C-alpha cells in the first residue's frame, strides 16, 4: 500500500511536469496551428543554461536566466523562422521545427558531451516522510510549482486580455485580426510562454532522483508529446490530463515491473506511447481535442 501511494504521488508529480511541457506544446498549436517538434530542444536549452550558470550566479538567478532565455529563444524561433516561412501548409512548418530542433539539440549535445551536469538546486536528495510513505522533496516541490504555474496560466487564459486575444485568434484568426488583435504578438507570446514553461520542466526533469542534465534529457522530454497528443492537441485541459495519465502510468509500470516481468524490462519507458496509441485508436482527436492529428 505504501509503495502504491509513493508511486502514485511520484507519478502525479512527474505527470505535472509533463503537463507543463504539454501545455506549452498545446498553446503553440492553438495560437499558430504548428506542431512544434522543437519543444524538447527549448527544454534542453533552458536546462543547460541553468546547469552552467548556477555555479557563477547562484541557483535562483540561474533559474531566472534559464527561463527567460528559453522564452527568448522560443520567441526568436517564432519571429525569425515560423513567421517568415511563407508556406501554405502547417505540416510544412512542423517539418521546419524539426530542422530547428536538430540544430539546437546537436549544438547543445556537443557542448554537454558525456557530462552529467548538476542543477545546483537547494533540495538535493532530501526526503520527507508522512507515516510510512517516503517522498523526495524535489518531487513535492515539482508538484507544487507545476500546479501553481498551471493555475496561473489557466486563470490568465480565462480572464486577461492576453487570454481573450489568444482564444479569439485560436478560434478564428481572420476575425480576430478584424477586431484589432495583433496576431504576430499573440503567436510570439504563445511561443515565449511555452519556452519558459519548458525551462521550468527541464529543472524538475533533471533534479533528484535523476543524476542531472545530460544529453539524453531531451529524450525524456519526448514523453510529453504523447501527453499532449492523447489529451487532444488543441485542449489545455487535455494537456493536464494527458500529462498526469502519462506520469502515473510510467511511475506505476516502472514500480511494479518486477510483477509484470512477462512484459519485459523498461516497460515504464514504453508505456506512455502504448497508452497514447490505445487512446488514439478509440478517440482519434484525443480525450478533449477537436482536431484530429491526421488533419493537422
Amino acid at each position, binding site marked *: 500500500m505504501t509503495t502504491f501511494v509513493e508511486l502514485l504521488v511520484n507519478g502525479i508529480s512527474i505527470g505535472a511536469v509533463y503537463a507543463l511541457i504539454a501545455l506549452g506544446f498545446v498553446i503553440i498549436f492553438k495560437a499558430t496551428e504548428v506542431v512544434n517538434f522543437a519543444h524538447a530542444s527549448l527544454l534542453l536549452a533552458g536546462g543547460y543554461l541553468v546547469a552552467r550558470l548556477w555555479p557563477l550566479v547562484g541557483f535562483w538567478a540561474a533559474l531566472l536566466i534559464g527561463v527567460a532565455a528559453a522564452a527568448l529563444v522560443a520567441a526568436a524561433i517564432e519571429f525569425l523562422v515560423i513567421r517568415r516561412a511563407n508556406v501554405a501548409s502547417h505540416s510544412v512548418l512542423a517539418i521546419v521545427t524539426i530542422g530547428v530542433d536538430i540544430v539546437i539539440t546537436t549544438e547543445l549535445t556537443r557542448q554537454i558531451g558525456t557530462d552529467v551536469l548538476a542543477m545546483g538546486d537547494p533540495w538535493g536528495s532530501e526526503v520527507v516522510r508522512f507515516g510510512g510513505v517516503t517522498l523526495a522533496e524535489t518531487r513535492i516541490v515539482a508538484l507544487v510549482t507545476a500546479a501553481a504555474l498551471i493555475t496561473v496560466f489557466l486563470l490568465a487564459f480565462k480572464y486577461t*486580455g492576453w487570454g*481573450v*486575444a489568444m*482564444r*479569439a485568434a485560436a*478560434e*478564428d*484568426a*481572420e*476575425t*480576430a*485580426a*478584424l*477586431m*484589432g*488583435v*495583433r*496576431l504576430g504578438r499573440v503567436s510570439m507570446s504563445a511561443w515565449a510562454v511555452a519556452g519558459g514553461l519548458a525551462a521550468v520542466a527541464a529543472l524538475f526533469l533533471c533534479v533528484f532522483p535523476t543524476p542531472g542534465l545530460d544529453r539524453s534529457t531531451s529524450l525524456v522530454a519526448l514523453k510529453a508529446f504523447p501527453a499532449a497528443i492523447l489529451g487532444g492537441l488543441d485542449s489545455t485541459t487535455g494537456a493536464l490530463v494527458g500529462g498526469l495519465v502519462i506520469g502515473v502510468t510510467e511511475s506505476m509500470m516502472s514500480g511494479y515491473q518486477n510483477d509484470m516481468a512477462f512484459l519485459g524490462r523498461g516497460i515504464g519507458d514504453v508505456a506512455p506511447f502504448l497508452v497514447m496509441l490505445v487512446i488514439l485508436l478509440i478517440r482519434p482527436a484525443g480525450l478533449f481535442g477537436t482536431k484530429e492529428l491526421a488533419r493537422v
Partner: protein
Amino acid sequence: MADLAVSDLVVGYGPVRALRGVSMRVPSGSIVAVLGANGAGKSTLLRAISGTLRFHRGACQGAVTLGDQRLTGLDAASVVARGVVQVPEGRRVFARMTVEENLRAGGLGRSRRENAKAHDQVVELFPVLRDRARQRAGLLSGGEQQMLAIGRALMAGPTTLLLDEPTLGLAPLMAARIAETIKEINSLGTSVLLVEQNVAMALSLASHAYVLEVGEVALEGTAAELRDSDEVRRRYLGVADAVEGTLETRTLSRWS
C-alpha cells in the same frame, strides 16, 4: 473624421480577378451602400479595405485612403486602430467564447475607460447582449449573433463601420431591427459602408450607392436615383411595384 476613399482598386486571388479598377468614396458621416449579386466582389472590396486579403491569398493594387492617410499595405490591426472596423459576412462570432468575452475581444486595443463607455453604448443598443452576457455566443440565434457581431465591432470605437450583408439569412422583422440600428449608429456620427443584397433596405438607409457587377462599378448615384433607375428596379427590386421608401424585405432576384 475623414472620408474613406478607394481608388482604382484591382484585386486578384491568384489568377482570379475579383475587382477590376473600383473607385468609391464614403463621405464622413454618411451611409453608402454597395449592392451586387453573389460573386460581384463586395466582400473582396471590404477585405481590401480591412487588410485581410492575405488570409485569402489575395493581392491588391490601387489605394485605400482615410482622409490623407493611406490604409493600403497596413495590417488588419492597424486599420482597426485608425478607426475602420468591419463586421464580416456570416457574423463570425467567436462561438466558443461567451457573449461578454466576444465584446471584450472587440475592445482589446483600447483603454479600460473607453471600453466601459463603449460597453454601455452597446448594451443600450442591444439589451439582449447584457441578458445573455455569460452564454456561449454559439448558442445565440442568428439575429442575436448579428447584434453581437455589430456590438463587438462597436467596442473597437469605429469612425467608419464596414458591414458585410448584415441582414443575410435573418427573418424580416430582425432585418428591419438591424436596419434601424444601423441608422442609429450612423446618427451618432459613425460613417457606414453597407454591403447588401437586400437592395430595398439598403437604399432606404443610404444616401449614396454603388452597384458592383463582376468586379466593376456598373452603376452609381444617390439612393433616390438608383431607386428610380429602370436597371435597378428590374434587376434588383424584381418588380415595377417597388415603392420608394418602403422597407421591402424581399431579396433581389438573383441573376446569373
